[in-house]
């Protein structure tokens, strides 16, 4: 596979590939390490062609050692490099947890040391991956002070945000949604662009009800909004894009406008980042609310494997519509 062509219809996956490629081109300090990312081009082919272009000095096939992948990234970052570490599936980040949450996250606070690493990888369900290939892992990391957390929903954002993440001086966890890899695409500009961390995006405008969400659930929300529109209900969708830093203002502005809020996420409910959003709305926009804030999430179970089980597990359009009806009838 050759250098990605810029512009034109681009998948979410190809967008990430472009973003990585451009940053590798423009900054010699950037390098990548992970399992099967070189010769094989990555389990999902995100890094296809990188080895040929950038060589084994900068595209490093590592042993199956997530602690070493994250830890070596941390060390290299301290030496002035800009590592991009791939977790073959984001689930396996648990094996690099100590390096990420105790070393990378706390370096700055403990001794002023910047740790500009990106730990990226496929997250999320919908592809029959089972309990170890389907995690939305954001809450482990939003709860760790010192880490930034990015969860793009569109090809444009995936590209713009991976570039911003690499340029950022803090450690960033970049969750790519594997269901979206080849399912969402859009026309991207041929010119270079970067999407800043910490800015939400209004995916759809509306006046009756706000859905705050991120990653694949943005598209689920959009389907529900479409269905509700047929009944004259105008849903506004706030795509957070980055959870840390959180664009509180975008959330509050939308809720102040609509007076009703659903928080939608793919991860289980208890301890999910949705709780944080709901609390923020309750604290800062209470007087605007016409109804309680409702969370629509996965159940509090691991992600099951068998298709009928997984389809039920993932929040769907119908679940969102049901919640919306409740709020509208409140």
């Amino acid at each position, binding site marked *: 596979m050759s250098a990605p062509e810029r512009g034109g219809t681009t998948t979410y996956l190809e967008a990430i590939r472009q973003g990585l490629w451009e940053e590798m081109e423009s900054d010699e300090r950037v390098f990548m390490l992970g*399992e*099967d990312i070189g*010769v094989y081009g990555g389990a999902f082919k995100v890094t296809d062609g990188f080895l040929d272009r950038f060589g084994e000095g900068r595209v490093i096939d590592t042993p*199956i050692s997530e602690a070493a992948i994250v830890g070596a990234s941390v060390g290299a970052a301290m030496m002035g490099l800009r590592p991009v570490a791939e977790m073959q599936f984001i689930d396996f980040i648990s094996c690099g947890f100590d390096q990420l949450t105790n070393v990378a996250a706390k370096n700055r606070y403990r001794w002023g040391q910047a740790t500009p690493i990106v730990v990226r990888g*496929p997250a999320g369900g919908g592809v029959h991956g089972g309990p170890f290939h389907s995690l939305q892992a954001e809450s482990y990391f939003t709860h760790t002070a010192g880490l930034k957390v990015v969860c793009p929903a569109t090809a444009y954002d995936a590209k713009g945000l991976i570039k911003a993440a690499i340029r950022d001086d803090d450690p960033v966890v970049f969750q790519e949604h594997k269901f979206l890899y*080849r399912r969402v695409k859009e026309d991207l500009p041929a010119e270079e662009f970067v999407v800043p961390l910490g800015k939400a995006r209004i995916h759809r405008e509306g006046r009756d009800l706000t859905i705050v969400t991120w990653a694949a659930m943005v*598209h689920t929300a959009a389907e529900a909004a479409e269905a509700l529109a047929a009944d004259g209900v105008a849903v506004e969708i706030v795509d957070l894009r980055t959870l840390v830093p959180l664009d509180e203002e975008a959330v509050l502005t939308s809720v102040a406008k609509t007076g009703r809020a659903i928080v939608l996420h793919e991860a289980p409910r208890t301890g999910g980042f949705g709780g944080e959003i709901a609390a923020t709305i309750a604290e800062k926009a209470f007087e605007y609310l016409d109804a309680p804030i409702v969370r629509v*999430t996965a159940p*509090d179970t691991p992600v099951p494997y068998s298709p009928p089980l997984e389809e039920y597990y993932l929040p769907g359009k119908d679940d969102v519509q049901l919640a919306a009806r409740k709020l509208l009838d409140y």
Partner: protein
Amino acid sequence: MAEKKTKGKKKTATAEAVTESAAESQETGRTTGEGAAPTGEAKEDFQALQRRREDLALDVTRAFPDKYRISGEMEGCSDAAKIDLLERLVRTRTFDARMRRLFRQGRFEGTYYSQIGQEACDVVIAAQLEKTDFVGPSHRDLGASVGKGIPLTALAAQVYNRVDSPDGGRYTACHYWHPEYWVMQPSTSIMMNWIAATGAAFGFKMLKKKGVAVAFGGDGATAHGDFHEGCNFAGVHRLPIVYIIQNNLWAESLPLSLTTALTDLAHRADAYGFPGVTIDGNDVISVWNTTRKALQRARGGDGPTLIEMKTYRWFGHSDIDPADYRSEDEVEDWTERDPLPRYVAWLMENEVLDEERLEGIRQAIRQEVEQAVEFAEASARPEPEAFLSEVFVHEYPGFDVRAGR
């Protein structure tokens, strides 16, 4: 524009199952014509090659070069036990080859990991275990379950993720296990089973129970930190455990030289104060004698043994991986070192087995496999509600898995 993400009624196309390597996969390759899984003509070539190789795998009487002939004696192994072992090997392989084809035909979702070529590493030790000995398998250990006697019906239902699977469809295909047979459910997260089996051995010791644990892992997995922590713990406590490394030279696309600077992984045992040996994992006699001794050591209170078995996986990491990172010569050589024909030839030379008996065994096993497939296909898909329980043993007041809806 985003394709619609629907849920509920719609049957998921089998071609859309996904995961691991070609993760890989479907989602990718099969539906879009890109990614890991070959497509178009390449896909046809790939599938034809797979079929040829499966046919080869089922030909257990085929000729092989003299240099791969096996010899010696299987210590403490009666003729009946030798035949029993052969049956377990043939059962494992026949089931595996059948499942591969069914996967390609789209009969079940998800993914498939084949063990073809490596069976002896699992089956030979598993067959020597008591039912209550503990087995900690990984993602390529069909033989551990078949070797320990788990019925093929349960294993087929596992692959099909149906209600009759031991996990009722909650868990990823090819992660074989069974509670009654003391084979723990493998974890997709590499090496979790290694430490868990170490813990089981610790349990045997603490409870002063007779019993051994056997843990399985790949060459690639030995790079993982948990490998070290498990071995070290077992060494300190002289636990009754046998560690098996199936060194098939590759970890997905990663060659051994990028997993380790060692040539023989058995040397790793030196660091933990217990013996490590490297053997030909495709030589049933050698595997038998070595594992037998290791089990005796474990049962006799002499502590752990690490056995590195050199072997080879004939197919891709998962079914959709064309494995084109390996050379044809290498694959060819290893298909000639197939453990089954080598063992069959030795049994025949020693007049433990003849053609007629072998044919009888193969036929019976083919039937058994077909019955298992029929059983799995007839087994119901799990109801969505079926996964909303058993998160805890004691669900606390107010715990409601559905609260998110």
